Every structure is written in C-alpha cells, then in structure tokens.
C-alpha cells in the first residue's frame, strides 16, 4: 500500500503523544479516531495485509479469554502474532493499537493477526475485511440497550462469518451458530468444539446460550470438553487421546474457551498444528483478572469475580464456594439498565455484606427479591472496597468481590493493581 497512509500514521502518532501528555496512561482511543477520519481505509487495509492472514474472534462472551489462549498457542508454534488489547475492540481503539506498531507504509511486522471483535463493531467493518479464519464463540442474550435480541446478534455474527476465506470455527452446542453453518453452504471448513453430556449434566442451568442444539457433539466431530474439575479440563481432539488442559480460572466457560482456542489454532495452522504445544501454551496463560482470580491485597486474600452478562452472572454465582462468608457486590455504570439481569437466580448467594457501585440500589433490589440478606449499601465504591478489606478475616473461605466490568476497572484503579485504560 506504499506510503499512502504515512501522513495519517504520523498525525495519529502525534495525537497519541499529545493525548498521553494531557492524561498519563490515557487517550488510547483518540489517535485512532483522528486517523479513521483522515484515512478511512487504513484500518481494514492494514488488517488484511498479514502474510498468514487475519483471524477474528467474535461472539457474545468468552472472546477475550479465548483470544489470549489462541494467541498463546500460535506463539507457541513460533508465529509472530499481532493482537488487540481487549479494551480496544472498538474501531478507534483498534486503529490506535495498530498505530503503535505500524511502519510508515502501514505494514506491521508479524505473520498473523488475531483480533477480538465486538459483534456489533465487527459487522460494521466486516465488508472490508478478508479474514482467513473466524471463530464464533456463542450467542447469549447481551445487553439489551445495545442489541435488541439474539436473532440480531446472530445476524451480525453471520455477516462476519460470511467473510471467512478458509474456516469458520463454531460452538456445536449453540443452535444459532449451527444455523449460520447451514447458511454457509459448505463454502468454507466449519470445525466444531463442544461439551459432553456429562459436562452439560454438571451444569443444571445450562451453558447460558440463547438457544442450544438438541444433541451434544460426537467426540470424533471436533474438540470435545469431556469433563471439568476445578482449574483443569479434559479434552479430546477428534476422539483421540484424552488431554488435560489447565484453565485460567474455575468454570465450565473457561473449558469451552480452551476448546475453542484449540479448534481455532488447528484451523489456522493446519498440518503444522502440534496438540502438545497448543495444550501447554494454552495452559500457561495467566489467571484472568477479575474472573475468579485470587490476589493478595493489603495483606489479605481476595477472590475477584467478573459478571458481564446474565450467563456469566449465573455461572459465576453457581460456581462460588458455598462457604463464602464475606461478599462485596458492585455493579457500575456499564450496565445502563440492569433489567436483563433479573432472570438470574441470585438466591444462592445467601447474603452480601456490601452492595456497591453506581447501580447499587438496582442490584440490592434484585438481591432482596431473591431473599438475599444485605449488610449495607455503600454507593461509593472506593469506600466500600476499603471497608470490605478492613473487615476482620473471614473464618470460612476468602473475601470475595463480585463486580461488573466498570466496577472492576474502578476497583483495580482504587487498589493501584495496574494502570487503567482510559474510558472510550
């Protein structure tokens, strides 16, 4: 593409420096905004320019963990991989991330790009992209103020899937995704991953999918999650030997993410795929912050649990240690209207010591109608976190913080756990 985008790239970089001077650690989306305005083709052309192609990971949930696993597996195979930080899955953020690495010709050193893409955003730029492989994780009922319903989400995913030139990797347990496969009419490979009957039985509320296929995937049909136990899972590839994979946190959804990453790595690498390398590199990704991660904070052990949608909300509550004595629960402004959380049965929590976040009252209301006992409501999250950590050590279990993404960012900033991305 020559030097056509050089001025835009230079301007974008200047804007980035200025944005950082004004607000240290911040301004990540602004340079992308500027470049998208002055050189609208930059983003898609750069994404299409990787010698071994572009891989898109999209779907309602599990994108960011699966992307990390897939990137680890590909790097384990010696590939140089460009990927986007998970906070930058909007157009501007992505362009900004590319700017960090692009040469003035708009090229990025790397063999392959793996991008986590929000389904809404992905559908908007899908027409201009030529991904080699697309991974569709699932269709869950996402935030209703953004997407009206599951059919609409499925439609957006189909639009992205139709752009794949080689393979569309799908969750075999998801009926919406299987419908998309039917409409692809055999134009590309469609490798599957899924869970066994036993795994489904161990999750009596189901997997949180908007619609499930009637039968489980036969083991010979792809990557099968045979069992999940604590932070490990047993999988088979095409009905072959049983392999144990370490997970970044407890929970069936992480096992499904690992299966998705294995199936996708194989689709990308073809006969260069080495299952042993893939399994060990996927198992080596660090625990995911705020998704069942346990940290030492101010001299005490704290488990952080992230709820992003009704499905992860329900699964995370169901997977909490029933002995958990101290709980802080915070929902913030990322949840515009918490109505869609109401089908979640929170009664299993029993009690919550402090309810916090800017949506504290709405959350407390839902908990109350599930007869969950509430210690108190403290809307100021910083204060709530301080007081929660200062409570005497629990006699059973560890201090547990459950939060939405916005409350997670604020908690992380408050505790100085790591640099915080600027809000988009």
């Amino acid at each position, binding site marked *: 593409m020559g030097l056509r985008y050089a001025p835009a790239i230079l301007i974008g970089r200047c804007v980035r420096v200025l944005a950082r001077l004004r607000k240290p650690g911040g301004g990540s989306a602004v340079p992308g905004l500027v470049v998208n305005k002055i050189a609208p083709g930059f983003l898609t052309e750069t994404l299409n320019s990787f010698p071994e192609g572009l891989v898109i990971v999209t779907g309602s949930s599990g994108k960011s963990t699966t992307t990390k696993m897939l990137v680890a597996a590909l790097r384990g195979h010696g590939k140089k991989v460009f990927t986007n930080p998970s906070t930058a899955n909007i157009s501007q953020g992505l362009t900004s991330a590319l700017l960090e690495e692009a040469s003035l010709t708009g090229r990025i050193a790397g063999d392959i790009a793996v991008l986590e893409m929000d389904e809404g955003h992905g559908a908007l730029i899908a027409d201009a992209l030529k991904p080699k492989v697309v991974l569709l994780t699932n269709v869950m*009922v996402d935030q*209703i*103020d953004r997407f*009206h*319903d*599951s*059919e609409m989400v499925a439609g957006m995913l189909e639009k992205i899937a139709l752009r794949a030139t080689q393979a569309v990797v799908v969750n075999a347990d998801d009926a919406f995704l299987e419908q998309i496969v039917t409409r692809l009419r055999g134009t590309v490979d469609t490798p599957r991953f899924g869970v066994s009957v036993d795994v489904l039985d161990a999750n009596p509320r189901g997997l949180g999918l908007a619609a499930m296929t009637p039968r489980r995937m036969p083991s010979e049909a792809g990557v099968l999650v045979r069992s999940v136990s604590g932070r490990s899972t047993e999988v088979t590839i095409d009905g072959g030997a049983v392999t144990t994979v370490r997970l970044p946190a407890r929970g069936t959804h992480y096992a499904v993410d690992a299966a998705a990453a294995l199936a996708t790595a194989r689709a990308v690498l073809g006969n260069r795929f080495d299952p042993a390398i893939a399994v060990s590199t996927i198992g080596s990704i660090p625990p995911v912050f705020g998704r069942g991660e346990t940290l030492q904070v101010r001299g005490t052990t704290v488990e952080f649990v992230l709820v992003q949608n009704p499905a992860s909300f329900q699964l995370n509550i169901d997977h909490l240690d029933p002995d958990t004595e101290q709980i802080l629960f915070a929902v913030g402004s990322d949840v515009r*209207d*918490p*109505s*869609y*959380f*109401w*089908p979640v049965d929170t009664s299993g929590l029993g009690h919550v010591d402090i309810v916090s976040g800017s949506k504290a*009252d*709405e959350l*407390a*209301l*839902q908990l*109350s*109608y599930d*007869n969950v006992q509430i210690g108190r*409501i403290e809307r100021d999250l910083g204060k709530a976190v301080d007081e929660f950590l200062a409570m005497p050590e629990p006699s059973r279990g560890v201090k547990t913080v459950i939060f939405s993404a916005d409350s997670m960012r604020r908690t992380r900033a408050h505790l100085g756990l790591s640099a915080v991305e600027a809000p988009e």
Partner: protein
Amino acid sequence: MSDELTIVTLFPSLLNSNGDAENARVLARRAEWAGASARVVAVEDASELPAHVDAVVIGSGSDNELEAARDKLRTLLEELRRWGTEGVPILAVGTGWELLSHGIELAGSNGGPVRAIEGIGILPGRAVPRESRVTDDLVVKSKFGRLVGFENHARDYNHAEASPLGRVLSGSGNGRGSGQEGVVMGDVFGTHLHGPVLAKNPGLADELLARMFRRAGLDYQRGERAASVDEIARAARNQIAVRLGLESE
C-alpha cells in the same frame, strides 16, 4: 379460592427478553412478606395452566417470535378475557402487551410494505411503527404513584387514550404526541415499562396485590420486609429521576 396464591407467567421462553416475567416473582415475594403463601408457575403450554390462578404476568419477547407468542396466547383467549374482568390482575409488558391489542404493525425492512400481525384483541388500540426504536428511561405520573423504569420498543401505541396508565413526565411512552403511557382496562395493565417494573414501583405492585387478595377474600397489608425493600426502590427511582432533572420524592 385456595390456600396458596398462584401467580402464573405466560410463555416465558418466548416472553422474557428484559426480565419482565420476573414481575411474577415480585408479586409472590410481596405476598409472602404480607403473610400469605404464594407460588410462581411458569406456563409454557395451555395444558400446564393451574386450576386456580390469582395473577398473570406476560413479558416482552423478540419480534421474530411475535406470531409464535400470539398463537400461544390465543390458546388462552377465553381465560384471559375472563381473568381481566373478574379481579385477576394481568400485567403485560412490551410486546406481551402489544399482543393483547387489536394488532401490531411492523415496519417493512428496507422500505418494504408494512406488515400487520393480528393481536388477540382483549385490549383497545394497536401498535404502530415508530421512526426509530426508543431505548431510554421512562417516568410516568400515575394514580399508583410516580412510576420510573426503562422503555425499549420500536412501536408506538395508538388508541389507549381512554384509559392510559399515566402521563409521561420523561421519555416516549405511547408516543404519537399522546403524552401518555400504557393502558388499563378492568384488571389488565399494559405498559412499556420493562424489566422489574413492580419491584421498582411497589405502588403499582401493591395495587395488583390488593386486587388479588380481595378476590381471595383476604386483606392486603404491605409486609415489614416490603417496607424496607421499598426504601431501596425509592432510592433507585430517585437516582434516575434526579438525573433526568425531576424532583426527588
């Protein structure tokens, strides 16, 4: 009359997009807090309908499944007609409400012709396309108090003027310049206020409970636990109202 109050939620697998069906749980819980015993029955097929019904909740669903949901509701047409006139409160939210009307007009895709779906016709009026979907806070002045909630709908509602639920203080409601929201006919309540409208607005919940209890020959007095939970609801309503420039109450 039976010892246990039975609240049914109709076809929740088709009609619970925004957690509207959970209003059944709100009624059951408040009935328990008032000292009664109560249960929620999710009815997915007419054959599952309990012999005795004290209240009915119909939630909102997806446009793709409007006809499927309408056909299911039709199998209970006689019951719905009877309940709505003999003291069995029916709360219908969003598309669940629209399906009780005379009909729903759907905007054709890409400028195509408007398509109409017949409703089951137990409420006056019909749903007609809006220029664009409204997804925002909705505040309504009603005789059950100031109602605060969230609306998310692609259609206005025509001809509810005779008996609206209330007057719009902020938001769109029934639209078409009516300045009104919802409809009330006998014991049938239709509203765009989606999600747990009864939890957030216990004044409306208690109106439905009073009707349920009256028919069962009981007296409804708000329970102690409800009183403390209602303080949380008041704070949640006020937070939204103040953000919209309305007064705290």
